[in-house]
Structure formats: structure tokens, C-alpha cells
């Protein structure tokens, strides 16, 4: 028999938990839901745009009544649960409806706090919390003129902005001298206030409300200093309090909220709680973002998986006022032991402040330019050591290179402005998709619109759009990001499990780690294949079915289904005989396009799949091996002519490049890996935008790492300087092996180094000589079995079926 699950509270936290549970264990429970409001589940954080007339109630429904029916969920709307009988495991609603449970989930949310001043119960005094409040305000705006909003926090400002857009004359009353003091410091709050005043809002700061005046309807608000302002509508937006009356009455331990453990269980292990009603590790979250993480963990436990833990959330905030860009996260005020880095340009309306403690970002406030909000937030949550990038930190991530996308002020952009250049997705399309489909995460937006799903360079813009559309608390990519939908484990956890537990094949690994799918997916299988290959060199049998097509057939698939072939030309140095052989092959197989690549190779494009093995056979006879232009592998080593010919050359860069390429070819890496060697600091081989670039100087060789010339141009960081060619080779092998062993699959060296910090890489490669030799040793060990030319093997008949049609019919 199915177990019975009862959910009390039909809001975002509870229903999100049910959705997660249905994904994990669709048939485990009979589910009953009680909701006090007469609706399905709607997106509460979009109430402000409804008030501002930018959306309708229908726009913000997340789960309509049909969703409950389709999932076999019994829904009681408009029924408030007034009692939990824990002994009988039963809940009772005010109308007498009862439901018994095996597990109970409390998601009772929070209540708006009402200041108990005289007159607070007068008609015309309202809070800003649900659809009822919004409808009330919409009606009030039709017949009334002046509104007073008590509370200059996030919610109060959003309410004020909405009412003002509806044509009301609005005054915001705030107890302190800083608006949104939970999110902003004084300078940014002043900028915000000035901007809102420019839109016609009035502010009364440091004003303490004494009473609300009126006989049968509110007429004015009076303050402690005796002054009064007229009001037909008073909105109380001074904060929320977790709603735990029901839990408390049932004898569950409550403090400021319902106290839960890391699996979201209350003191009665059959009773779970999530969302704004809970207190976890001393914190009650008043924002929506943490509940997604809580819901996931709770569902995991309800489904008897029990390996997920909620360890608290770091939250960030955005204001949903059209045209205002504002971001805040963490401890933005700092204390005696922290330092501030500040950028201030009041004329342009820009203010940025980062709070730094022990070389880590602990808080951030951004006003006017928030493009880097999610980057700072990531650095903060990952506790990344920022000492290496400190000087450039305030200028943003794009300053570490050039993002290549000029526009970065999202609020000012028109709906028709193109955000994603790869897939041609404009701002309006993304905003519509977010609201119409109830999207919360970057992944959601990618799936629905394809924006930022290709090269990813507009990810920051899309995250900003999500934040400005969802406002205060969209669900940022969680800190602990699972590998794919097949598992909740992260890349790092999977890797560790593979080495720690001696997992040696994909089926063994996915079974050990309890994958949810029988044979993984197109995202996890290639990653697993690489991790196994890297962990067990020579022993692991490469799984061609888990390779992306290009790596499976050792050529690059083109848009028409033909392939391109790039023979390896060591260090970019060739000769007439080789060129003649390539020309002959191109003619023999009617190659339509012959192109010189950016990496100093020759690309033969438009080759039919069946022709590949024969063509490789011919190239093989002429002495060529695969150029691996198709793989997450060592690509090319680009060189300049160096001291052999160049009048400026200081070292023999071509010989160096050829030695490096001979040593590293055939190795598989987390993403493609490019190198270059320049013979002097003029750097004609463009070594400083490579994964590893070598620049010769008179006294030796400079080694530069982490460059990228693609999606996001990023110049390398200097790793160190060495004296001899042998040292260049040793450091190269060690660096590649560190990247192979520690970067996540599909991380280029640039983001990997930005995550772990250059200092860490220096410590492993430069300072720890013994460790460097061990890394280089493991690289060479792995190369023993990796340096087999895949083209020659296939020309001789390996994987023959792969290249031939199964049958020709008719």
C-alpha cells in the first residue's frame, strides 16, 4: 500500500518539494495538499509586477488545478489546517476535513508583520503578501489618490513602485535613514532613493508611525513628531514573521521558526518543514531562493534516498523595480576585521562595494552596474581566494579578459535587443519565457529559449535577466551543482568516488553512485568516460559509445553531416613532400574546401564518412597522424620561426614547440587544450591566449597559463620562468596532468584557474618540486598508452562498421 503524505501550505516551498519528490519517486506516496488560499500554486515573488500592471495573475500561476489532478494529488483549497494530532497522525482543517498521514510536510510560510499602532485595523490598511492584497490595491488605485507605504525595505519599495505606476501619489515612510538597510549600505541606498525620487516617489525618512487616523476608513498617518500626512490607502510592509503557530500548537520545537535539521525534519521525524516557516541552523530565510535547495533535500529524504543534506544558503537580493539594477549579497557592511573595495561614480549612478575578509569576498553591494553580481556571488559561495585578481576585481569578470559582448546594462536594453548571439534570442523572448513558463534557473532558461546554451558568453546577461524578472530571490545556480539530471552528485564527488572506490567502468560507477537512469545521458557519459580514462590509464577500456561523435570517429562533424580532416603538422612546420601528399589526398577524395586553420594546420572539409578510413590510410602512408582537431585533447602547438630565422628571435621556438607537441599529442583533457611557443616577447605565436603559452626571453622561457582566445578572450597568467627546454617539457607535462586530474569535464583552463586560484597552481607546479615530478611522471605514464594514432588503427580496419552503412536498399 502507498504511504500517505500530507502537505500543509500550498505555496512555492511545499509544491516545489512535491515536484522534486515526484521526479524521484512518483509512486511512493498518496499526496494530499491543504492550501488556505483559493488558488493553485502561484509565483509569489512575481506579485510586484502584477501590482505594477506588468503581469496578470494568470501569468504567475506555477501549478494550475490540472497539475494536481494529473499527478493524482488531492487538493483542498481555501481550507486552513488548525490542528495536528500527532498521536493519531492526522490533520484537521477548520471546516472539519481530516487527513491522516505517514509523513507530514509543513510549508506554512510566513505572515506579514503588522505594527500594532492605533488604527491598524481600519479599512484601507493592508499588507502586501498575497493575491488578495494585490487585488485590493488594484481596486483602491481606481478610486483613491494618496497612498502611504510604511516600510522602506524590499517589499515596501516594490509596493510603492507598483502603486505609483497605478497613478497614486505615494509616500514611503521608513524608520531608519537608509532604505533597504538589510540589503544596502548608506551610499547605495542614497543612490536608490535619488533614483526613485526622480520617478516621483516621496520619502519620509527616520519617521516613526504613531497612529493611523480615520473613522470608518483610513484618512491620514500621524508620526511621533506630531506631523501627519493624508492617506486613502496604507500598506504595511515592515517585514514578515515565520508562521509556526500550527507546529507550535502540535508540540513541535519552535524558536523563531520551526526548528529543522539538515534533512528538513522537525523534532518529530515524521514531520518535515520547508520554506519561510522554518529555522535551520539558527536562520529563518525570508527569501525564496533557499527553499529550492531545501525542497530538493526534503524530497530526497522523503523518497528514502537520504544522501542529500541542506547546509544553509548564502542569499543574494535584487530589487524588482523596472530600470533599477541593484544587487546585494552576504555581509555587505563588514566589520573591524574586514576591508572594503569601493568604486563610486554618483554622476553615472554607479556604486560597487565588495567586502573582503581573509582574501575572500564576504559581501557585495552593486548599484547601477550589476552584471558581475553572479560572479561575485559565486566567488563568495565558493570561498575563492581572490588575492590573485584583487586589483581587477571591481572592474568585473569581463575585465579579466574581454567578454566580447559590449552591452552589459540590462535594464536599459530594449525588448528587441539580442542577448544570445549564437541562437538569436532577444531580451523580450527570455523575459516572456521566464514568466510564462515559471522558470527559475539558468538551466530552465537554456532549455526553453536556448539563450546562453551554446557558447555561454551571454550567461551573465541571462542571469541578470532572471534576477531582474524574478527579483529578490531567483534561484541562482546552486553552489553544489549536480553533474546532470541522472544524479545529485557533483563532478568532484563523482571523481573522488571513482578513485577512492576503485570504480573502473561506467556501469560499475553509475550503479555504485545510484544513478537514476539505466545508462546515463549524453552529458554524464562523456564526463565519466574521461574521468575513468584519467584515473586508470592503460587499464580502462575506452567506451566509444560514450564519446561525442567527433571523438568516436576522430573527425569533426559539419552541419551537413560530412566531416573535416586535419592532419597533425608538428609545431606548424611542414615541407613540400607533406604538402604534396595533402594535395594528392584532397584531389583523390574530391575535398571541396581546403582551409588553413588558426592553429597552423590544414583543414580538409566536406569528407564523406565512408571515405575517412581510406583517406587516413593515404595520409598515414605519407607519415601523418591524427591532428586531434576534434577532441577534448591536446590540439596544436603553434610556433613562430624563432631564433633560427627571425632577427629578433631569442630562442629556437619551433624546435621547442615540436618537442612539446611530440610529448603531449594523443592526450585526452577535460576540454580542448592549446599551446603555443613564441621566440621573443613580440609574441607572434600569440602564446598569451593559449591554455599554456611559452614566450622565449634571452635568459630562458616564460610559462604562461590559462589563456583563451575563444568565447571569452582572456590573457594568460604568468606561471613562472624556467631556463632550459627540458624544464619547459617537465612543467608542461605537470601542468597538463594537474588540469587533467583536477578540472571538471568541459572546464577550459581559464575558468578552472579562476576557480582554484593561480596561487594554488603555482604551489603545485612551481613550489612543490617533488609534486611536479610526480605529476609529470603520471602524465608520461598515461601517454604510453595514449599515443597510438587512431587514424592508422582505423585505416587498418578497427571500428570498420562505424564508417559503413549497414545496408543499401533500393
Amino acid at each position, binding site marked *: 500500500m502507498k504511504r500517505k503524505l500530507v502537505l500543509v501550505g500550498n505555496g512555492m516551498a511545499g509544491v516545489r518539494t512535491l515536484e522534486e519528490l515526484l521526479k524521484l519517486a512518483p509512486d511512493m506516496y498518496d499526496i494530499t495538499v491543504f492550501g488556505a488560499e483559493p488558488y493553485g500554486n502561484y509565483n509569489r515573488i512575481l506579485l510586484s509586477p502584477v501590482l505594477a500592471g506588468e503581469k496578470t495573475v494568470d501569468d504567475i500561476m506555477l501549478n494550475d488545478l490540472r497539475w494536481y489532478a494529473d499527478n493524482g494529488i488531492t487538493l483542498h483549497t481555501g481550507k486552513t489546517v488548525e490542528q495536528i494530532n500527532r498521536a493519531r497522525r492526522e490533520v484537521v482543517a477548520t471546516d472539519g476535513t481530516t487527513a491522516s498521514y505517514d509523513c507530514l510536510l509543513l510549508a506554512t510560510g510566513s505572515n506579514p508583520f503588522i505594527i500594532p499602532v492605533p488604527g491598524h485595523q481600519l479599512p484601507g490598511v493592508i499588507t502586501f503578501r498575497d493575491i488578495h492584497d494585490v487585488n485590493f490595491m488594484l481596486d483602491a488605485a481606481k478610486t483613491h489618490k494618496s497612498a502611504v507605504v510604511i516600510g522602506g525595505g524590499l517589499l515596501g519599495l516594490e509596493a510603492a513602485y507598483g502603486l505609483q505606476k497605478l497613478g497614486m501619489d505615494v509616500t514611503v515612510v521608513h524608520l531608519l535613514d537608509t532604505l533597504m538597510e538589510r540589503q544596502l549600505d548608506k551610499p547605495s541606498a542614497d543612490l536608490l532613493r535619488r533614483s526613485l525620487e526622480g520617478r516621483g516617489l516621496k520619502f519620509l525618512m527616520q519617521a516613526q508611525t504613531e497612529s493611523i487616523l480615520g473613522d470608518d476608513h483610513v484618512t491620514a498617518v500621524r508620526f511621533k513628531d506630531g506631523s501627519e500626512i493624508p492617506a486613502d490607502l496604507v500598506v504595511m510592509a515592515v517585514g514578515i514573521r515565520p508562521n509556526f503557530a500550527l507546529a507550535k500548537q502540535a508540540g513541535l520545537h519552535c524558536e523563531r521558526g520551526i526548528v529543522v535539521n539538515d534533512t528538513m525534519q522537525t523534532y518529530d521525524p515524521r514531520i518535515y518543514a520547508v520554506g519561510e516557516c522554518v529555522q535551520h541552523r539558527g536562520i529563518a530565510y525570508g527569501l525564496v531562493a533557499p527553499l529550492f535547495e531545501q525542497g530538493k533535500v526534503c524530497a530526497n529524504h522523503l523518497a528514502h534516498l537520504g544522501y542529500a543534506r541542506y547546509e544553509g544558503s548564502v542569499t543574494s537580493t535584487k530589487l524588482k523595480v523596472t530600470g533599477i539594477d541593484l544587487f546585494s549579497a552576504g555581509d555587505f557592511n563588514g566589520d573591524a576585521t574586514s576591508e572594503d573595495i569601493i568604486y563610486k561614480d554618483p554622476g553615472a549612478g554607479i556604486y560597487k562595494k565588495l567586502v573582503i575578509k581573509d582574501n575572500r569576498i564576504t559581501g557585495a553591494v552593486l548599484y547601477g552596474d550589476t552584471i558581475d553580481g553572479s560572479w561575485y556571488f559565486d566567488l563568495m559561495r565558493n570561498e575563492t581566494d581572490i588575492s590573485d585578481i584583487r586589483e581587477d576585481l571591481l572592474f568585473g569578470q569581463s575585465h579579466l579578459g574581454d567578454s566580447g559582448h559590449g552591452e552589459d546594462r540590462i535594464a536599459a536594453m530594449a525588448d528587441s535587443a539580442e542577448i544570445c548571439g549564437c541562437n538569436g534570442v532577444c531580451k523580450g523572448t527570455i523575459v516572456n519565457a521566464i514568466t510564462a*513558463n515559471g522558470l527559475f534557473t539558468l538551466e530552465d532558461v537554456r532549455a526553453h529559449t536556448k539563450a546562453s546554451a551554446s557558447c555561454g558568453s551571454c550567461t551573465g546577461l541571462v542571469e541578470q535577466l532572471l534576477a531582474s524578472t524574478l527579483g529578490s530571490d531567483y534561484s541562482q545556480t546552486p553552489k553544489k551543482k549536480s553533474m546532470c539530471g541522472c544524479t545529485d552528485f557533483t563532478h568532484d564527488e563523482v571523481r573522488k568516488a571513482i578513485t577512492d572506490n576503485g570504480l573502473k567502468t561506467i556501469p560499475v560507477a553509475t550503479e555504485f553512485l545510484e544513478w537514476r537512469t539505466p545508462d546515463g545521458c549524453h552529458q554524464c557519459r562523456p564526463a565519466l568516460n574521461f574521468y575513468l580514462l584519467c584515473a586508470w590509464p592503460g587499464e580502462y577500456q575506452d567506451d566509444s559509445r560514450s564519446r561525442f561523435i567527433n571523438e568516436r570517429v576522430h573527425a569533426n562533424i559539419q552541419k551537413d553531416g560530412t566531416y573535416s580532416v586535419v592532419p597533425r603538422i608538428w609545431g606548424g612546420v611542414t615541407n613540400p613532400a607533406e604538402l604534396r601528399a595533402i594535395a594528392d589526398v584532397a584531389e583523390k577524395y574530391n575535398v571541396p574546401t581546403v582551409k588553413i586553420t588558426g592553429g597552423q594546420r590544414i583543414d580538409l572539409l566536406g569528407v564523406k564518412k565512408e571515405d575517412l578510413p581510406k583517406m587516413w590510410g593515404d595520409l598515414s602512408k605519407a607519415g601523418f597522424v591524427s591532428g586531434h582537431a576534434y577532441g577534448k585533447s591536446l590540439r596544436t602547438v603553434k610556433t613562430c620561426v624563432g631564433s633560427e630565422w627571425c632577427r629578433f628571435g631569442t630562442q629556437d621556438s619551433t624546435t621547442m614547440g615540436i618537442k612539446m607537441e611530440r610529448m603531449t599529442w594523443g592526450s585526452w583533457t577535460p576540454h580542448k587544450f592549446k599551446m603555443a611557443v613564441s621566440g621573443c616577447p613580440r609574441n607572434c605565436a600569440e602564446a598569451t591566449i593559449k591554455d599554456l603559452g611559452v614566450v622565449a626571453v634571452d635568459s630562458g622561457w616564460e610559462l604562461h597559463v590559462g589563456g583563451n582566445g575563444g568565447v571569452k578572450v582572456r590573457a594568460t597568467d604568468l606561471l613562472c620562468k624556467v631556463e632550459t627546454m627540458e624544464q619547459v617539457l617537465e612543467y608542461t607535462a605537470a601542468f597538463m596532468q594537474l588540469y587533467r586530474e583536477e578540472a571538471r569535464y568541459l572546464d577550459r583552463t581559464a575558468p578552472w584557474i579562476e576557480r582554484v586560484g593561480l596561487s594554488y597552481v603555482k604551489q603545485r607546479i612551481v613550489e612543490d618540486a617533488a609534486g611536479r615530478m610526480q605529476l609529470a611522471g603520471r602524465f608520461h605514464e598515461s601517454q604510453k598508452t595514449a599515443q597510438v594514432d587512431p587514424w592508422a588503427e582505423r585505416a587498418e580496419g578497427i571500428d570498420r562498421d562505424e564508417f559503413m552503412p549497414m545496408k543499401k*536498399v533500393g
Partner: protein
Amino acid sequence: MTDWFEIGAMTDIPRLGSRVVRTALGDIAVFRTATDKVFALTDKCPHKGGPLSQGIVYGERVACPLHNWVIQLDTGEAVAPDKGCAHRYPVKVEDGKVFLKLRGTVVNIADYAAAAQA
């Protein structure tokens, strides 16, 4: 004459893989899952015509190699939120041999047009 063509042994198709059958109507991709189920679809992704036979197969799905659309092998439908459908061909396995039904199946107009141009 029968409409079913024998196209080879099931073991000619790798598990979690696909082979192509060349026909006058264009290429047909024949897939074999981990559990030895066999499916046949036109070798064209409904998105931009990518060769589905070259994609990664998992469960009863294939990911198109060009832009990672995921196509359901039993229905030919793209997995939501993407929308589109690759034409299905009836296929059966008898005594380890795979048979594909070509005549009498409804073929979509685009396939005809492509075949006429080829």
C-alpha cells in the same frame, strides 16, 4: 513483394549505438538500446537536419550531434521543451535479424522532396 526488408543482424548494430540504412528516400538510422530494443527513424533531426545516427544513445533516447536536441526513439518526438518529430519506420527483429518496413509507410513530404532533389 513484401514491404519488409532484411537489413542485417541485430549484432551488426552496437549496443547504445546506431547504423545507417541507405534508401532512395534518404538515410534511415537504426538504433539498438542497452536492452536490445531496436528502433528506426529518418536520419534527420527535426531541428536542423543533423544525422541522429551519429548521436549518443541512452535509455530510449538519442541526443542529436549538432545541437543536442534529444529525440525519443519510440515516437520520434523531441523531448520538451523542444518541439518537432523525426519520422518513424516500423522495424522488427526475428531470429536475430532486423527487418525494416519501407513501402506503405507514411513518409513525410520533406523526405520526398529531399529524395527527389538527390
